[in-house]
């Protein structure tokens, strides 16, 4: 039986000020799987992520979330999308004026102010325990390491039980052990809670650990879109050079 798709795009063209960055994107993110978007720096991975999370309207094409088209001009439609997703930003994007408890509780405090303080604290504590930061609940973001900030940001992204978490370069700037820990965490969340992940990265080790499906972007187009094991048999020279390490991507572009 085919797995249900939670995010789909149809002939999507994304970019800034009518300048396309990537065109003809037909993506299908399947529920309960980790889809990795990869490509060289500046290829449009983060731009795609911005469109998928509703922050950047596409130049053309359509984004569907759980079968419903996202209307980028409708505040109501965007709010519906925001309620069902969580986002892990590259630098964590925790508010520096709030401690971890307040940061992670922010979506609850603002959207559900009637939830009592002790319940809210319990919800935050549970999430922080899942990411291994429970003892640091009262610390401020500036007092945490890069890896801790990202784990805290993941806890915030999960706090309202989103169906999909979209991550922008979660391993960037982290040492291999910390990055591995974050990957483990995502795999656990996928297995235990059935959360769907869309992960933008170019870390090969991380892709190898977590990817179920892969989307490869290069030179403004999709060069591979499918299950991770099929990457090995992809005939695309860029995919080969990028992934199978047969030379560098730069060399490929010049042949």
């Amino acid at each position, binding site marked *: 039986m085919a797995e249900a798709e939670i995010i789909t795009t149809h002939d999507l063209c994304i970019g800034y*000020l009518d*300048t396309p960055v990537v065109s003809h994107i037909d993506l299908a993110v399947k529920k309960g799987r980790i889809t990795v978007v990869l490509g060289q720096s*500046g*290829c449009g991975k983060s731009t795609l992520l*911005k469109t998928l*999370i*509703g*922050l950047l309207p596409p130049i053309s094409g359509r984004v569907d979330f759980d079968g419903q088209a996202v209307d980028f001009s409708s505040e109501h439609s965007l*709010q519906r999308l*925001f*309620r069902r*997703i*969580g*986002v892990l*930003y*590259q*630098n964590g*994007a*925790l*508010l*520096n*004026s709030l401690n971890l408890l307040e940061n992670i509780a*922010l*979506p609850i*405090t*603002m*959207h559900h*102010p009637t939830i009592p303080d002790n319940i809210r604290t319990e919800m935050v504590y549970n999430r922080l325990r899942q990411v291994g930061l429970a003892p640091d609940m009262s610390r401020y973001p500036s007092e945490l390491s890069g890896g801790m900030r990202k784990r805290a*940001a993941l806890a*915030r992204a999960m706090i309202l039980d989103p169906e999909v978490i979209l991550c922008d370069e979660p391993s960037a700037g982290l040492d291999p052990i910390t990055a591995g820990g974050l990957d483990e965490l995502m795999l656990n969340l996928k297995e235990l809670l059935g959360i769907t992940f869309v992960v933008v990265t170019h870390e090969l080790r991380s892709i190898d650990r977590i990817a179920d499906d892969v989307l490869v972007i290069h*030179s403004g187009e999709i060069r591979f879109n499918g299950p991770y094991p099929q990457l090995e048999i992809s005939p695309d020279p860029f995919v080969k050079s990028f992934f199978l390490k047969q030379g560098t991507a*730069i060399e490929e*572009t*010049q042949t």
Partner: protein
Amino acid sequence: MTQKIQRIRLPDRLVLDNHGEILNLLRGLDQSLPVELDFSGVDRLDSTGVAMVCHLRKTHSDLRITGISPHHKRMMEVFTGSGAPQPDSSMPAASSPHKGMHAFKQFLILMADEFAHVGRFLANRRGVYPGEIRHQLYLMGYGSYLIVCVITFLVGVTIALTSAKQLNNFGANIYLADLVGFGMIRELVPLMAGIILAGKVGASITAEIASMKVLEEVDALQTMGLNPEKFLMVPRLIAIGLAVPLLVTLANFVGIFGGMLVGKLFSGISFKAFYQEMLTIVNLGDYLFGLGKTMVFGWVIVISSGFKGFSVTRGALGVGIATTESVVLSISLIIILDSLFALLVY
């Protein structure tokens, strides 16, 4: 008829320390005619040589290269980064009348939105982070009162000193009280408080919001389903509305006291006489007029600072530029509005 081709035989050293000779060779080329660069004699090539060829390619659409060795061809490709994303030259110019109009429109939209958000907050008390108004009031009020007092005291002293000598010459010492009281309450305190708030509060709002934008915190708020403009601006607008009356009242007392001190020391006017004379001219309406002006200045500072903060684009550099622009914009708007107020009540 065959088109004439401009053939240039390049020297053996297409490098930085030979750039004068190369420039001489390339100078005076006709842009309407094709150019052929003969690389056959080139022995050494560096990034300067490559840059010159690249520049020539931009100015002469029909540029041909002959006799280039595989090694130099490879160097050209590596230096020019073929395959790497090129900067978009079709981006609009950084500054244009169209952009200015667009920015002005955005400013007005933000202002209208913010006052609507404040109105909705006052009606339903939702959408503002708990304790944030108190926190902002502390930063704006407690954080600014000392500098506002020092500056307005010194302005009061300076105005009184400047006027006292002239008034003493005419035996009109007592009118120093009218001049200081009226001038401080209606004009100088609102203006000085506005300028100080623009520098202290405005700059801090812009820097904070711009940094949040650069660090994707504003995006994060949005994807949490929060309206960043409402979340960040409403507490500040309410806080400045509460801080201004306190600051203005305090500044009026301190500024006038500075004038009183000068009156006592240099014009022999007792505190009591100064006070009684001042009350013959200054009334509650003047105080409310000055207060109203400062409230408007305060809101303009918060809106323009927020506007600059939200429109930041270029990382840390952009934060610095936005902060400077916000102070300049706020002070300019304060002075323009002050002139309009003066004209209105003339």
